[in-house]
């Protein structure tokens, strides 16, 4: 190396400008497709943030029991429809979060139970407190929760988002609801991905009569209004099915319609790629069809599939929420955002206890985040475009 520096120095000075300009270009030209996509995706700040938001939501789903502080299924008539209660962070200038204790009274005129904070009674909050028992990640039993109160039960003291009609804590139920709401979308999308890739692939690969048939089926399915159909199918589920059975039935119902979009994407990519020179080159080189598909075609449209899948997810989540909201989807004791929103069906109830609407917020945030993420992925999916 020391030998050649003199030579290289002279060489460099002469081609100084050329080498500066090509350094960046060279980095681009030797990068793999996934690197290019990553660089391009990184520029989408909104998509990046959305990706993190979604990751955070799934983390919540994993640790839902830990983040909850009250048993989500425990009902208590005395704690019906308590309003969300503010947390005070500073006590006499020191950081020591506390809430006021609540006193239940009966309104002398309406005979309804009302709850009023009692300024005399400060209940200190603490981290990693003990509460109801659960299995962390389904692995080991514990009763530690992120927040709780010293001594006493958290159920009786903390009401971050208030309670529902049956006195169940809304915050805790929202945490638990993440699980079903977020995974039912994933399961549904996975199922429709399988259907979509299979049928779309066949359609795009073989063309001809099979293609026409599958395309007609897709067109027919897409021109049928989905919600009435779902409602019909969902209503036909036997009443005595358990949570798990209903969960899978809903997944199947959602993906029965959802696969068409993905199938169209896959077919479109197949048709486009079939005409590409590199596929022809591989064919002329005598590469087997299976290898052409797996080695040459799939890598160049995998990214499109990922983007399309991401964009299909929010629709699944909306659909589940809608069905459960109508009472035709997941049913109590299952907890999902749609199930939580069922309580908000009656406008009189909502007018008096607006906090029942709070399950709408995670729905909106997750759908937005998936849309932004999907958009960013779709833009990045075409790194050469």
């Amino acid at each position, binding site marked *: 190396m020391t030998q050649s520096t003199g030579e290289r120095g002279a060489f460099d000075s002469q081609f100084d400008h050329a080498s500066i300009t090509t350094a960046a270009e060279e980095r681009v030209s030797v990068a793999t497709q996934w690197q290019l996509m990553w660089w391009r995706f990184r520029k989408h700040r909104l998509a990046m943030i959305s990706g993190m938001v979604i990751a955070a939501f799934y983390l919540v789903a994993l640790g839902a029991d830990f983040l909850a502080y009250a048993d989500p299924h425990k009902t208590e008539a005395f704690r019906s429809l308590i309003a969300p209660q503010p947390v005070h962070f500073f006590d006499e200038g020191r950081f020591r979060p506390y809430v006021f204790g609540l006193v239940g009274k009966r309104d002398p005129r309406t005979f309804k139970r009302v709850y009023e904070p009692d300024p005399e009674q400060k209940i200190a909050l603490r981290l990693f407190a003990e509460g109801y028992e659960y299995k962390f990640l389904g692995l080991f039993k514990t009763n530690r929760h992120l927040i709780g109160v010293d001594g006493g039960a958290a159920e009786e003291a903390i009401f971050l988002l208030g309670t529902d009609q049956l006195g169940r804590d809304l915050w805790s139920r929202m945490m638990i609801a993440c699980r079903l709401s977020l995974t039912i979308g994933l399961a549904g999308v996975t199922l429709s991905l399988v259907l979509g890739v299979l049928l779309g692939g066949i359609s795009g690969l073989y063309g001809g009569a099979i293609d026409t048939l599958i395309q007609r089926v897709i067109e027919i399915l897409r021109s049928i209004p989905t919600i009435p159909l779902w409602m019909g199918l969902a209503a*036909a589920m036997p009443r005595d099915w358990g949570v798990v059975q209903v969960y899978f039935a809903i997944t199947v119902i959602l993906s029965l319609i959802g696969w068409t979009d993905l199938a169209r994407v896959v077919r479109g990519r197949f048709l486009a790629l079939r005409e590409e020179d590199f596929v022809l080159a591989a064919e002329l080189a005598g590469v087997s069809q299976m290898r052409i598909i797996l080695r040459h075609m799939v890598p160049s449209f995998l990214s499109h599939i990922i983007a399309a899948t991401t964009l299909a997810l929010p629709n699944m989540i909306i659909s589940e929420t809608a069905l459960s909201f109508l009472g035709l989807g997941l049913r109590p004791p299952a907890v999902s955002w749609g199930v939580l929103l069922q309580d908000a069906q009656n406008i009189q109830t909502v007018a008096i206890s607006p906090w029942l609407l709070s399950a709408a917020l995670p729905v909106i945030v997750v759908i937005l985040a998936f849309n932004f993420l999907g958009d960013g992925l779709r833009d990045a999916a075409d790194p050469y475009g």
Partner: protein
Amino acid sequence: MLTYIIRRFLLALLTIWAISVLAFAIIQLPPGDYVTAYIAQLASSGVDVTPEFAENLRQQYGLDSPIWVQYLKWMEQISRGNFGRSLEWRAPVLDMIGDRLWLTMAVSVSAVLFTWGLALPIGIYSAVRQYSIADYIFTFIGFIGLAVPSFLLALILLYLGFRYFDANIGGLFSPEYQMADWSLGKLWDLIKHLPLPAIILGMAGTAQLIRIMRANLLDELRKPYVITARAKGMSEFRLILKYPVRAALNPFVSTLGYLFPFIISGSIIVALVLSLPTIGPLLLRSLVAQDMFLAGTIVLFLGIMTVLGTFISDILLMWVDPRIRFERRE
């Protein structure tokens, strides 16, 4: 051109057939059959049911024959205008549906019109003035429209109306017209009540169409023919409307076929929240009560309505795109 229409028409017929099969499946899915349920109902209301009567009923509905024969019998009954009886309401299904079908149509069509009327100009503006403040605002509103499912939007608006204006924004008629017969006054009352459900239903579609229009138009604005037109000395306004907007209209129109089923779908659940006297709440009730002839018929009608809407949008697309008129496919 003619072959295009014929092809579309045949596809529409095929779709209607597929929907009829699905509707029939929905009627058949719940355990037990119609006659058992009907007899149980009669018995509970104190009518003495003889086994012969039950057997007659069974034969009339062909419940003892194979499933495809039952389907054909059902179709035959339908073609004669007999859609069966609603178990829960003890009335012919058609009487139950009545006006609700037309009101559903009115709400859906006005939602489509709203979607178009808003998405077109906003999409054009957003593309032509890309990255302007208004573009950002529209994009933001668009994303909200996309992310808030229509029934949640309805719920939130209902709450806001209740809370801050002390008004019930639901329903399609003022109380005094609710039970009244049709008259000009009732029609006007309906028209006054239509915008809100139309906006709620159209929000998501509008957001989507704005994005489609904006993206298409941005593509078109970069095409050489725009520079050609500019080099002719055309004014910018006329130029944009005549050339790129015209081109961007095609994918825009072709989305109508999917917009319509989408809106009808949404109208079911929004109608429930806003308590509209449309077909949605009836469908839900019939499903919950397993009143299957009513439910199946409603699904069938909704499907046919959707197919008609899609067919009309296909014809519209043909009118817009000269390449389809010339039967050239891409």
